[in-house]
């Protein structure tokens, strides 16, 4: 598959030819189930779009039954930016319902396979995006990351996935899961492509009040030769599988070989991250998803009266994991529990933020696992608690609002990719991409 950088040099005819071939390839690999459908807008370089990013006149459903029949009447800011920069939304790709999941198994459109092993999950929630790029069925894709939903599937599928600093990329037009955690980000074949796509989609947007209003770009200053101080977390890695530990050791050696300074740091037990995350995310989600009531749009299931219509619509429209999180969110916000759960979670969130800030006082980047294991087999994370615990390495980054990039380091003995992430301080995407490019060159991962 040609890279995004190469594709951006193609002329119109070459692009049209490429897109025809791409359509055929997607059609020939239907079993993968990365794409929900293959529509396109504009004449630019094709980019696969996660099913929760609004593309005007497309059916955009967040992988849910409840939004069947809904046609988006407007473009998300990132889609507008793609179109303005010679890129084209090309196909919407599968995801966990409302981005709630780590395996893409909860989608209304069925499971997506991991391109490296058909019996394994591609990760989630941006599993369709990762599988499409990993299988050579997309040049690049957009995903969204609330608790690792870009980085984890990228790691499972052997591609690059980047979550920008909270506020870097407009959320306008992203079907919300958890407003204070969600960010749209690039999912690409390599670090440089990720930087190109990041530069295009990031920037100020007055339609998103939480947007930071920053317009600085990475590509003009991209420099893999910068010598950085990078923190490693030996204790943190102890809970990961041997595959991950091996890749971690390999990455440390590679960073040293590239001339970076490695320092050891510690972080508090990730169990607090899990609690703070699932309380915050579900509280926000329960309200964000309350709008899906069947009154104005989507898949209404009529009842005898108003209350029953609400009940039927939501009972039939939402899947189990979404219902579980709506219940949890309502519980933590309910009168009498708010202080004990939500308020406490916000305090924990501040502690996590401060912890990162302290590390970043004298460190440029942190090297961390993305997931405790390689991609699990289908059904392995069927127990919700196991699934929530598999998020331990990714969610603190969202809670702290930091930028992070997952890139493939190696493959295990079964040929499954192992990815690791670099984490930078807020708004320091430049250092993140500089360090990631250096690491990518040093480890020379072969897809």
């Amino acid at each position, binding site marked *: 598959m040609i890279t995004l950088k190469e594709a951006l040099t193609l002329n119109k005819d070459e692009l049209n030819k490429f897109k025809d071939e791409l359509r055929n390839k997607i059609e020939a690999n239907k079993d993968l189930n990365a794409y929900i459908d293959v529509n396109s807008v504009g004449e630019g370089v094709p980019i696969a779009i996660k099913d929760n990013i609004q593309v005007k006149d497309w059916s955009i459903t967040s992988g849910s039954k409840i939004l069947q029949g809904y046609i988006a009447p407007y473009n998300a800011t990132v889609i507008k930016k793609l179109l303005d920069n010679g890129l084209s939304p090309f196909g919407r790709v599968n995801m966990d319902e409302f981005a709630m999941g780590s395996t893409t198994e909860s989608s209304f459109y069925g499971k997506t396979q991991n391109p490296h092993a058909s019996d394994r999950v591609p990760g989630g929630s941006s599993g369709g995006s990762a599988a499409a790029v990993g299988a050579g069925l997309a040049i690049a894709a957009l995903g969204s990351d609330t608790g690792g939903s870009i980085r984890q599937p990228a790691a499972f599928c052997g591609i690059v996935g980047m979550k920008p600093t909270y506020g870097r990329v407009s959320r*306008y037009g992203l079907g919300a899961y958890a407003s204070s955690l969600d960010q749209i980000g690039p999912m690409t074949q390599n670090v440089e492509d990720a930087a190109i796509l990041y530069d295009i989609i990031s920037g100020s947007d007055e339609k998103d009040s939480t947007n930071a209003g920053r317009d600085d770009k990475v590509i003009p200053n991209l420099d893999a030769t910068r010598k950085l101080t990078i923190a490693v977390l030996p204790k943190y890695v102890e809970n990961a599988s041997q595959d991950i530990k091996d890749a971690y050791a390999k990455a440390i050696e590679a960073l040293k070989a590239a001339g970076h300074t490695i320092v050891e740091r510690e972080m508090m037990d990730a169990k607090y991250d899990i609690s703070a995350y699932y309380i915050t995310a579900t509280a926000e989600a329960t*309200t964000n998803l309350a709008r899906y*009531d069947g009154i*104005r749009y989507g898949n209404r299931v009529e009842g005898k009266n108003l209350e029953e219509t609400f009940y039927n619509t939501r009972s039939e429209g939402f899947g189990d994991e979404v219902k579980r999180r709506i219940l949890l969110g309502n519980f933590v916000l309910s009168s009498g529990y708010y202080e004990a759960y939500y308020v406490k979670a916000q305090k924990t969130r501040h502690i996590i933020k401060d912890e990162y800030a302290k590390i970043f006082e004298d460190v440029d980047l942190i090297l961390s696992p993305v997931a405790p294991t390689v991609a699990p087999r289908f059904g392995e994370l069927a127990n919700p608690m196991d699934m929530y615990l598999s998020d331990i390495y990714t969610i603190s980054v969202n809670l702290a609002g930091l930028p992070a990039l997952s890139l493939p380091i190696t493959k295990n003995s079964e040929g499954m990719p192992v990815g690791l992430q670099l984490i930078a301080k807020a708004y320091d995407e430049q250092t993140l991409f500089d360090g990631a490019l250096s690491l990518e060159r040093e480890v020379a991962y072969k897809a």
Partner: protein
Amino acid sequence: MFEVVIGLEVHVQLNTKTKLFCSCPTSFNHKQNTNTCPTCLALPGALPVLNKEVVHKSIMLGTALDATINRVSYFDRKSYFYPDSPSAYQITQLYTPIVEHGKLQIDFEDGSNKTIRVNRAHIEADAGKNIHDGDISKVDLNRAGTPLLEIVSEPDLRSAEEAILYLKKLHSIIRYIDIGDANMQEGSFRVDVNVSIRPKGDEKLYTRVEIKNINSFKFIQKAIEVEVSRQVEAWEDGTYDEEIVQETRLFDQVKQETRSMRGKEEAADYRYFPEPDLLKCEVTDEMMEKYTKIPELPDAKKERFVSEYGMNQYNASVITSSVEMANFFETMMAEDGVSAKTATTWLTVELQARLKGDVNIMNSPVDAKKLGFLVKRIDDKTISGKAAKEVLDHLMENEAVSVDDAIDTLGLKQVTDTGAIEAMCDEIINANQDKVEQYKAGKEKLFGFFVGQVMKASKGSANPQAVNEILKAKLG
């Protein structure tokens, strides 16, 4: 004996050009669901952006209520399912409102006054409207997302009368600083009343009952009175604990009673938490500088009218009760040679009596300048008061005609030329010598007859005072 404890919550729709969190217009009477966009329809992915004009108007209200204006306030989500609430949560300010700790003075007829504390005023989004049509219910979301300020008083009011005085004063302030239309019929000034009773001397607050959405001062007064009676009767019957529960009741205007709307057992849990789609609401130094400069308030204007125009307190308070009337009055007074007393009468009695149907003080064919000029013509004795009524009638029908032209056309100019009046008097005296004899013999009542005859001869245009003086001199 019981004491009545009342607290008021007033929802004021702000007269901003656009909605609270999107750029849809706030105008009324448009086709259903046309003033909508992804944000106020709560489509997937749409986000709110705070309309700064709302913050500006909140600062103005805070200033008018002598309140604390929080330089940083926050928005919260209040969750409940209803078809007129597209996102199924209302964006409001629970934990830190923009305005807190204000006060408002109410004035009693006997000249005394009382200060009512205002707990807070917070910004929130209005809902749409449900229209029930037989078996079908329709939703119109044109109003969804219109900015509201909810102004909450402390439970400082002790009677229906005090509640009405508070509401009228608040209404007047909103009109004076022009942050809203405050039209009760159109729903841009909506009142919820919290009522409880307690034995006099008891400091404790008892069970409060909320009466929602009553759309006139008259009905609010009545609703409070009947609710207080209900609570007092229950207390006296010993059924207070069973009958008086914390609940929302509706006022039935026909039956003149309050009726339970939803019980305590169904009390909603709104699951408030901070709105993550919005940053803190900041009031900058520039905003404070600009928006704490508010127009003159009713009380200040009243005092100024008293001292500047020498009006009595009552007239001044009548004129300043409405900003439109006060402004009209001041424009009248800008004309040289207009007395406040005549201007007050002609504005509050004569003009008001002629404003009917759709014609009001704002679009009256006789504007303030013209009425001022008419008053000037009365005060300088060009026309009599009686003639002025005819002139005003004529002017109401003929908007393009000037005051002086109307006087000429109607031939109502007073004759003040004493020579002409003397001639007329002589003529009347000569023609009624018999009556002159009787008058001189002591039948003084006949003086009125002579005045009447002269006035008649002049077709009412003679200055009556001049006629009096001249006749007195001639008849001895």
